[in-house]
């Protein structure tokens, strides 16, 4: 899209056992409201931060490294206070660090900076209820340069980012922990920020709405205000936020309770060594090592678990056949059931056995598909599923075809003299017996081969 400039700010919870500035656990989802709390994370008078959770700092360094950032090691990193008043913010300020990583890059998108901050609690406006279990949970904030030229580009990149985070294994796994602010300007006009979007699809939708809205204003000769807006998921539109705050209002200042962080160069270097193979390089390796298509490779590496299972399956099954199944039927079946491969609990061994049957043409593709559908729901050895479902293996099909050909000599002869209806009759006979467990194409092939031998 011409003249569209989009930048993203991504907030994701870090997977630490305790909160950023106190010893409370971060598993607030399981806890009753206001049970995972203490004087520190509820802002009781006189409480002080215990210090900065080192695991959270290390997690940010790891992510910054994976996003090819420069780690700030040459100067102290201050923890700063950002002041505003809201019921979910017990101390009246949010603590955020100065950038820990800067000038990064992922998939040709420039990362402006990466830093650490604390999550506020949760305010349920309608109920007038505040739950402070979340208060003080460590967050990473990743800010990109305004380099996306379309809502779709933004969404696709977010998926890449999510994939990298999944590989690093230092962020929360639960759904819906990621929150995104998107800023957008048209033709270098005013920047509008859409706050607190909770999914990649909604980022795309919110931005698409915003482009339409702004284009409409511009077409009518009106001005786009520089403002903060919120995305309404149900109405699929954005509306201006009531609160208007400037940076000055936040009164940013260094937190006097917390000495600045000093990140050692050696720590940054050591962290780099511990980085796992990341999706981009893994995809390249898959193409080279297994002769996969680039598309198949990219598709499979987006989830580290799937990539690992694939590699193990590829030890005993032809990698190309396996990858086609991974990105084809397997993915389709999992998506249909809204689950991931990990959720399905299918074992590598089960998958490998099934794909071996396909590879050796022991079962038809159709039968394999049906087996897979069952396997996703109730994982078991494929042989057992095939038996339970009464599915045919290839050997059985050939026997049936032979039987039918033997029984229907007249039809075979008619077919050989060029009568198409006769062949369709034979196909129908086989299908009747196989009850749909073999696909028509396989039956046709088997019949043709069988008839020719006659």
């Amino acid at each position, binding site marked *: 899209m011409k003249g569209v400039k989009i930048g993203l700010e991504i907030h994701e919870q870090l997977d630490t056992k305790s909160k950023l500035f106190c010893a409370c656990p971060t598993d607030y989802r399981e806890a009753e409201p206001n049970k995972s709390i203490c*004087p*520190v994370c*509820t*802002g*009781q*008078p*006189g*409480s*002080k*931060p*215990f*210090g900065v959770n080192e695991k959270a700092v290390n997690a940010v360094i790891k992510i910054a490294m994976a996003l090819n950032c420069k780690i700030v090691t040459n100067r102290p990193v201050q923890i700063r*206070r950002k*002041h505003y*008043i*809201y*019921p979910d913010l*017990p*101390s*009246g*300020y949010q603590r955020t660090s100065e950038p820990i990583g800067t000038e990064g890059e992922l998939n040709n998108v420039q990362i402006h900076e990466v830093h650490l901050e604390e999550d506020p609690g949760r305010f349920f406006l309608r109920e007038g209820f*505040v739950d402070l279990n979340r208060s003080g949970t460590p967050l990473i904030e990743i800010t990109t340069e305004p380099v996306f030229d379309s809502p779709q580009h933004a969404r696709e990149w977010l998926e890449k980012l999510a994939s990298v985070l999944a590989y690093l294994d230092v962020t929360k796994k639960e759904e819906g922990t990621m929150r995104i602010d998107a800023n957008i300007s048209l033709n270098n006009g005013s920047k509008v920020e859409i706050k607190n979007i909770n999914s990649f699809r909604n980022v795309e939708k919110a931005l698409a709405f915003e482009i339409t809205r702004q284009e409409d204003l511009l077409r009518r000769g009106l001005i786009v205000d520089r403002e903060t807006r919120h995305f309404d998921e149900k109405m699929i539109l954005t509306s201006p936020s009531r609160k208007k705050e400037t*940076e*000055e*209002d*936040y*009164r*940013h*200042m260094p*937190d*006097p*309770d*917390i*000495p600045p962080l000093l990140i050692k160069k050696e720590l940054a270097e050591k962290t780099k060594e511990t980085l796992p193979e990341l999706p981009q390089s893994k995809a390249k390796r898959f193409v080279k090592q297994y002769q996969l298509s680039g598309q198949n490779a990219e598709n499979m590496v987006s989830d580290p678990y799937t990539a690992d299972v694939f590699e193990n399956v590829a030890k005993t099954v032809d990698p190309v056949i396996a990858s086609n199944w991974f990105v084809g039927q397997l993915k389709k079946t999992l998506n249909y059931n809204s689950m991931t491969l990990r959720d399905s609990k299918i074992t590598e061994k089960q998958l490998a056995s099934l794909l071996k049957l396909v590879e050796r043409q022991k079962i038809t593709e159709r039968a394999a598909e049906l087996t897979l559908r069952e396997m996703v729901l109730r994982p078991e050895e494929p042989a057992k599923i095939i038996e339970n479902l009464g599915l045919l293996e290839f050997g059985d099909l050939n026997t049936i075809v032979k039987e039918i050909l033997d029984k229907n000599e007249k039809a075979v002869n008619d077919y050989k003299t060029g009568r198409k209806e006769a062949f369709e009759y034979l196909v129908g006979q086989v299908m009747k017996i196989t009850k749909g467990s073999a696909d028509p194409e396989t039956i046709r092939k088997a019949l043709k081969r069988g008839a020719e031998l006659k």
Partner: protein
Amino acid sequence: MKLNEKVSRYLEKIPKSKLNAFISINKNAEKDAEKIQRKIDTNAAGRLAGYVLAIKDNIAVSGMRLTCASKMLENYVSPYDATVVKRIIAEDGLIIGKTNMDEFACGASGETSYFGATLNPSDEKRVPGGSSSGSAAVVAAGLCDVSLGSDTGGSIRCPSSFCGVLGFKPTYGTVSRYGLVDMAMSLDQIGPITKTVSDAALVLSVINGSDGMDNTAIKTKEDYTKFAKQKITGIKIGVVGEFFDGCDHNVEKNVRDGVEILKSEGAKIVDVSVPKTPIAVPAYYLNMFAEFSSAMQKFDGLKYGFRKEGKDLNDTVAESRSSLGEEVKRRILLGTYITMKEFRGKWYSTALKARESIRHEMRAALKKCDLLAGPTMPFTAFKLGDKIKDPVEMYLSDILTVSANLSGLPAASVPLEVKGMPVGMQLHADTGSDGKILFAAAAYERASK
């Protein structure tokens, strides 16, 4: 005397006192006394067994009100103990009550409390000094044995000087601030107010030391009681000329006499200079206002404390905050202004630079000697109402105490033997050399008796 008898006597005496020095009394004091006495009887008691302590009402004691002498927290009951309180209780110290103070520690006279001014035990028409007004007054008046105060710009030393007791502000980080309600976080420090040096050393020995709950607490644990017994022969005391500028003649004379006594005890006296003393007050106030406005942000009436409904969220916060006193509001407004300007990199950072230059000068002076000596306050306790209408004049009275906070140094006000209103001699030492102050103070105490 058994502890329960001692406590009963205090409990009888306190309500009769007109000083208005306590805000809350520990309802379990007599029960606590019996418990501790049983330990004393079986030789199982801690180091503070037998001591009756009062705690400034900006330090959290679980189950007791933590008012900060403000309407905002009039009914706030602390759900937890400050680290210093935990340590006192662990050593069997008995907490008798919470003391009056300037509201949220904002004041140098003890007059800004929502619960009314504290009076000076030496002259009830005069202020006791602030902000730890009650903590100094109760010790001076014999309403308890020792007390804890907090010191951000002189809040322990000023009232100690005005009431004639020993007030000790340790090196920043020596005592955990966990449970001390924030005033200016980079300056706040808890310390003892006592009648004797050995009591100060004992209390300090109990409360100091690293704490996982305060990131600024330094990682040591010291026994200060040994310092109170050392001789001062050969110790070098620097008398700071600038500390006497604009000082009352009577105060100057008493302090110089005090220095002479230390000399006669074997100390070597030298003259030193801290020329930047005049910028200490503006540097301090800018710094403190900025941090204070941030610290006060949590008192919004939404979670705890005084609440008055408004037409919307912001209005409710504004209405609730209207309960704060004039001096507190003034400081919040000034601090808010400063921190808003800070976004453009102006005032707070400049104040921090000024602070750094004062720290540099103070420590340079302490390279030439072991202790710096001078008056704690430029004058003795003034009359109630004399300065309260003129905030700038009140602020200027902190000129001699704020440098210790700005520099993170330990400093104490040592009560001098005087006729008339009490005068304090202030001693500063270098970071971590708190013990040197104690043994000089002990030498003075021995010589003057």
